[in-house]
């Protein structure tokens, strides 16, 4: 066997693979890695969620109960053991799933709108643009605990400067950090303050990738500023906006640290809060079920986005 034949064997072997087979081959290391660090814990969590809580025994979980944890969570039978109801549409600001969805939708929408506006401004040439960019990104660099403390101190009664005037105007109560509605609003504001910079940067990157000659063509064709935005900017930057929204939505639906530092999980219950609090109580089966439900909800939203995005891309092509 000559050296040349040995060396050329791998190339020959891969050459015989189809496109699909080759793609799978390239993805094997990624799947192995995901299998170890992501899929195995996910499956393990799902397995754990099929067992009853065991508060009085030495073992971590009790007997196998199938999907009972999920059924009882979704039908409201676990409300007593959770900081707040899991789903209660009659009190959407006090139950975990509505609170999480409200937080995610409102904060991501506000961040997208503000981020888009800021990105449009930063996309223009003006003096001091570099300093403006630095100032804009500063909140994004603030650690979440510091961010939480800033807003806690702003609204803490007796210390915070924001509580008294906002309370006097009837916007918030006297102790907003112990009121679910007020605290949720404050946490949304805190999140928007920090994360708008993230959206701005991603959208700005999208804006700057647009071929400037398209605007020249638009101007020559007599398009107004609004028409240029609608016909050129928006369609071309939309993929970047959607990707940014996707990542923000995933993060927003896992909100926990900000709640714990500004208020607490009993006042503003998110899905992640429920996972942590039930875990801390030793209710591992319930905790795992909520964790898996959270993952499923987020995963479902991601899949919808990806399918829609792929469809949109196909139409563009």
């Amino acid at each position, binding site marked *: 066997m000559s050296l040349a034949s040995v060396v050329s064997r791998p190339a020959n072997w891969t050459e015989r693979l189809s496109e699909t087979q080759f793609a799978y081959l390239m993805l094997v290391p990624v799947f192995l890695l*995901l299998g170890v660090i992501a899929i195995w814990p996910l499956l*393990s969590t799902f397995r754990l969620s099929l067992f009853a809580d065991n*508060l*009085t025994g*030495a*073992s971590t979980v009790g007997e196998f109960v199938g999907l009972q944890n999920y059924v009882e969570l979704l039908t409201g039978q676990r409300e007593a053991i959770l900081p707040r109801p899991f789903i209660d549409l009659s009190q959407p600001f006090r139950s975990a799933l509505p609170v999480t969805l409200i937080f995610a939708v409102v904060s991501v929408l506000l961040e997208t709108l503000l981020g888009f506006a800021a990105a449009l401004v930063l996309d223009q040439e003006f003096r001091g643009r570099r300093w403006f960019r630095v100032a804009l990104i500063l909140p994004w660099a603030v650690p979440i605990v510091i961010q939480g403390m800033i807003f806690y101190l702003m609204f803490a009664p007796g210390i915070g400067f924001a509580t008294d005037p906002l309370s006097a105007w009837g916007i918030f109560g006297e102790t907003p950090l112990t009121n679910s509605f007020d605290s949720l609003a404050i946490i949304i504001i805190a999140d928007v303050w920090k994360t708008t910079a993230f959206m701005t940067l991603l959208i700005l990157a999208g804006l700057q990738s647009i071929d400037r000659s398209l605007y020249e063509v638009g101007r020559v064709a007599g398009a107004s500023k609004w028409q240029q935005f609608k016909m050129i900017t928006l369609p071309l930057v939309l993929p970047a906006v959607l990707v940014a929204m996707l990542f923000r939505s995933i993060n927003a639906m896992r909100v926990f640290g900000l709640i714990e530092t500004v208020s*607490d999980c009993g006042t503003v219950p998110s899905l992640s809060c429920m996972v942590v609090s039930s875990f801390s109580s030793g209710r591992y089966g319930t905790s795992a079920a909520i964790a898996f439900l959270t993952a499923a909800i987020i995963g479902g939203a991601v899949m919808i986005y990806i399918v829609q995005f792929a469809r949109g891309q196909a139409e563009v092509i």
Partner: protein
Amino acid sequence: MAQRGGDRNRRGGDERRRQYARTIGTDGGPSSVSRRRFVEAAGAAGIVAGLGGCITSNGGGGGAQEGEIDVGEVPDEPITLQWAASEQEAGQSDKIVSALHEAGMPENIDINFLSGGNVTSDRQNQYEQWLAADREKPDLLRMDNGWTIPFIVRDRILNLERVLSDETVDRVKNNYFEMSVQTAMDPQENTLHAIPLWMGLPTMQYRKDLVEQAGYDPDGQNWATESMSWQRFSEITADVMQQQGMNYGYTFQADVYAGLSCCDFNEFMSGWGGAYFGGVENLFGPIGDRPVTINEPPVHDSIRMVRTFIHGSNAPNTLNQYAGNIAPVSVLNWTEQSSMRPFSNGETIMHRNWPYSINVNGAPDAFGENLGVMPIPYAVSADEAEYAGTGGPVAALGGWHVAINPNTQNMAAAVAAVEAATKDSFNFALFEILGQIPPKPDLLDTQRARDVPVMGRYMDALQVAGQNAIARPVTVVWPDQSRQVAQAVNSAYAGDVAPEQAMADLEQTMEQIEESA
């Protein structure tokens, strides 16, 4: 643990793949699955898989603990035990180890105090993870008496009656504050699983100078030992506030947190003769087979009283016979540190807090001897209260125990250390070094205790608090119940819900939790 995947650089990757295909001679034509779709699907799978976080089963603990363990002799070679403690102990480790040696721990045993966080629930979660994973270290664990029983029930810590002498066990059961020992025992088997190290006894701390300037005589009227009623307390506070022109009269803790359910609310409620589960005999169970008595008139009245203190007697659901507006609305968002701040700053007359606050505010460079300490006021006497252990100057019991990790590889040394920790000399040493109150009533009434700087001045009031201490109802379901209590009570104090409605809802929830165990 959460991983996030993505389909980054898709287009660039596709282009490179096409170039590669051309190089190696594959056709590059249409296939059944487009590369783009394939990579998108893989990216989506990665994202979905990464979102789940990770909660894994850790197996279990040790199982039922029966029979004596022959721990043998302490080996002669140097041994270093790990003791999960706090930064206070870690900072004074040399003195504490010396005290243990003086109390009989062999000289070849040294102790490495692990400095843990000050948030008790974080420590509880940490221990749960360590012990559920059968870790051999730390050998010794400092445990809050507010959550030791769940560790006992789940066989996470060693039954000390298997390793300590009968004489030591009897000494602990007979010579310590009974309520404190009960929080270290298996509620069903009555076996000892931890040794009380020190007690947290809340008191009413006040500005003696301001009160005296207003014409009151705390010493002559024996405020330190003869607890006053809440009504008189409110009247005095309001009067001193007015005379001194102060904004805050009384600060305490009513945030939505464990401290409200275990302690502040427990004291208000018990001082009115109310109880969570009837008398003290039901504090630690049986879960699901004890009455939930939270929705009763004494509890409603205690809430009305607190609302009067905060909102004044003109607000709804308040009591006319009490002086109002003595506490700021901020108490609804205050815990120990935040409520102590205005007191330490000289803005408050009365302040409810734990003994560490006495050390802080009674120091010579703070208020010194102008700090007064008295037992928590009450609304009804113990004789008038319906449930045993309630009424009178009830003080919520705090404090910490030491327990042995059943997986330790230094069992004999750990037992020797715990044995030494039961000695009077060690209790005194902890009091002198860290101001931690001995868990033995006899030690509080000694000259050595009275000689301790700052704290020693207030031994009379602390003894009354110790005699009237009531533990929180610690069971495996208490964490869930505690959360619900804190939310309901804070809402009722704030006026979001009427006391009767809040307690009726809470009663129902607590009964459901009782059934869930």
